[in-house]
């Protein structure tokens, strides 16, 4: 066995004999178990909410069918359109219960990401006029202060560097303080070989232990139930985690080469951790806000009120409704329809769309800009770089949420496109189910109502992990190189 390998083995043995090593690894393991459990619990709650929404949808259809059957009997009683499931407009506005959903990805338990502040479930309804897409959320900058949920990503991105600093931060520096370094340096060996063995040993132990602990924690808590279809992402994440650990070990090595002693080394490293965990993300968030032109929701709401006022008061409403009817074949000559509530509603929504689309587009543009900018700004800190990789793999990142909200809005348009011709057809030519029935029209295509099709693009996780792996490796090499250069000679 070569001297380098023998030395690495000896140093590994020494690190493993230190009580601090086991204390740090045990604490980290407990934190990983807790983080994985929190993630698993959150995902279970999300799945339960989605299952509840699906059950609610099924119940609503069943209720519509029951109502249809109950009212489809001859009777002198009359019911309103909004109580009538055979009326397409009544069904759309009162009975329809559908949701746009963002199901958790197979790796969702890895990172809470934006899930605490962004919806995974949007109820799409037409009960009242909506200017915006039934979403009361602002995406905002995703590189906000990273001290949120105590989840698996928090443990890996924020606490793992502290474990690395605890175990590697005083290598060489402590020997310098005690005087052992002088005896080491007097042997016929260069500082690079000694530092390589010391930091290599602690790096090897940390990478092996943390990967094993992380895998066990995810398995034991049920946070990841199956790796099918995610093995590539998981392998990339494991590589990214290893690169992240090595980056912090390289930082410890670089600080050790300042030869300022253990206290100074620990102080510098903890300051660096604080800088990259708190200060840089906060500064990046501020920069994101300054560099993007955030549209005013107040201004948009004000514009919507003006549009509503314009339509409701004065002659604009009937004129716009008549114009809207003119584009429908066979409807132009039906002046009576201008006052029909369903036609007024469809004409009004079309008018709102036309007048307010610029505002909506400004929000969509802002979402795209802030998401793209956040991806770049995250690179300013290894903590946010790694955190973004975990969020990307978990499918809880801001990008997926923005895409989900866009698809929820598209789903709303799809539903309107489904109902609109049926409502118009019933308005032009009402076909009673039976004479004297309460439920008097013929709409019963409840099962034909378009369902929301959730998407799950696992490639996004690959891209985020690959990007983080490449960047963290580059930064790690960037830290290791000056350390290597500075370790040319022993300090006197």
């Amino acid at each position, binding site marked *: 066995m070569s001297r380098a390998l023998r*030395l690495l083995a*000896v140093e590994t043995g020494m690190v493993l004999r230190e009580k601090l090593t086991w204390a740090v690894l045990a604490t980290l393991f407990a934190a990983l178990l807790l983080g994985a459990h929190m993630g698993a619990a959150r995902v279970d709650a999300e799945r339960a909410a989605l299952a509840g929404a699906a059950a609610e949808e099924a119940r609503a259809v069943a209720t519509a069918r029951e109502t249809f059957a109950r009212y489809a009997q001859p009777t002198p009683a009359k019911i309103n359109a909004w109580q009538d499931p055979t009326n397409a407009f009544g069904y759309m506005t009162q009975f329809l219960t559908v949701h746009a959903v963002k199901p958790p990805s197979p790796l969702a338990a890895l990172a809470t990401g934006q899930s605490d502040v962004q919806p995974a479930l949007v109820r799409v309804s037409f009960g009242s006029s909506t200017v915006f897409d039934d979403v009361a959320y602002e995406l905002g900058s995703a590189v906000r202060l990273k001290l949120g949920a105590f989840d698996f990503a928090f443990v890996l991105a924020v606490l793992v560097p502290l474990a690395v600093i605890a175990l590697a931060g005083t290598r060489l520096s402590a020997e310098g303080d005690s*005087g*052992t370094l*002088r005896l080491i*340096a007097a*042997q*016929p060996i260069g500082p690079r070989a000694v530092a390589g063995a010391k930091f290599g040993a602690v790096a090897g132990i940390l990478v092996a232990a943390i990967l094993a602990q992380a895998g066990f924690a995810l398995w034991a808590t049920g946070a990841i139930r199956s790796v099918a279809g995610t093995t590539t992402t998981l392998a990339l994440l494991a590589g990214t985690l290893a690169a992240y650990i090595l980056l912090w070990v390289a930082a410890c090595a670089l600080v050790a080469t300042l030869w300022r002693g253990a206290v100074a080394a620990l102080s510098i490293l903890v300051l660096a951790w604080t800088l990259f965990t708190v200060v840089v993300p906060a500064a990046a968030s501020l920069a994101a806000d300054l560099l993007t032109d955030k549209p005013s929701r107040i201004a948009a709401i004000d514009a919507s009120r003006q549009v509503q006022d314009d339509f409701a008061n004065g002659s604009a409403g009937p004129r716009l409704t008549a114009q809207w009817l003119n584009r429908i074949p066979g409807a132009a000559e039906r002046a009576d329809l201008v006052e029909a509530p369903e036609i007024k509603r469809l004409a009004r929504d079309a008018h709102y769309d036309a007048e307010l689309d610029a505002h909506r587009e400004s929000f969509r543009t802002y979402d795209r800009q802030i998401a793209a900018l956040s991806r770049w700004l995250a690179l300013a800190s290894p903590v946010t770089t790694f955190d973004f990789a975990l969020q990307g793999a978990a499918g809880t990142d801001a990008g997926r949420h923005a895409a989900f909200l866009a698809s929820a809005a598209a789903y709303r348009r799809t539903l309107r496109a489904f109902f609109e011709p049926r409502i118009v057809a019933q308005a032009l030519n009402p076909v009673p189910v039976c004479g004297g029935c309460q439920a008097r029209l013929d709409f019963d295509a409840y099962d034909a109502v378009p369902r929301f099709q959730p998407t799950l693009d696992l490639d996004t996780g690959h891209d985020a992990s690959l990007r983080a792996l490449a960047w963290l490796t580059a930064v790690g090499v960037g830290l290791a190189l000056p350390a290597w250069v500075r370790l040319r000679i022993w300090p*006197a």
Partner: protein
Amino acid sequence: MRHAPDPVLAIGDVVKRFGGRTALDGLTLTLRAGEVFALLGPNGAGKTTTINLILGFLRADTGTVRVCGIDAGADPIVAREAIAYIPEQVALYPGLSGRENLRYFTTLAGLALARDEADRLLEQAGLAVEAHTRKAASYSKGMRQKVGIAIALARRARLLLLDEPTSGLDPSASADFSSVVRAAAARGTTVLMATHDLYRVKEVADRVGVLQAGRIVEEIDPARLDHAALERLYIERLAS
């Protein structure tokens, strides 16, 4: 024609400055195999700088430092192959036993020491057997120094550098130390010791150099003087 072998240590007209302060000012010293040379001098005279130059931790501004013919400034790792160094405070890893410390430091030197071999060397250095497996955290200074001696013995170095070797040792440990130095010299090891201990100098040194303001101002043959005369001469040189 037969050439004389290279001296084990050859310091030639070395000047070393730290900023505006001159630590060594034309130091010249040659030591041959088996010689014991004591470097006497007050604090700040340049003893530690001399040792740092020999170990290759510093490079001379001018002049040369050669160990067994190897330039210690240009090729310090190779030069240190021939050097064993025992600092004033032998700082071992407190969590390791004496034996483990010995095996660790010899591993650094590229040696793979078997357990029996390590125990034999520790015994040879005078460390009690019961202490071989005890953690170094409980060792006295003398015990730690014995581990340092064991490291030097394992290294079979040609040049033994000792920095204040008897400072803080009790008389018995100090006497043991003198024996070890003489035994090493008898095996052909060259010894350079920086010290204030005139008594031990008289006991073990073949030559004594008085270092003052970065140069050897007087070289003394201790065999020619008794302890009192040696002390008187040393004090006179420092006062002059």
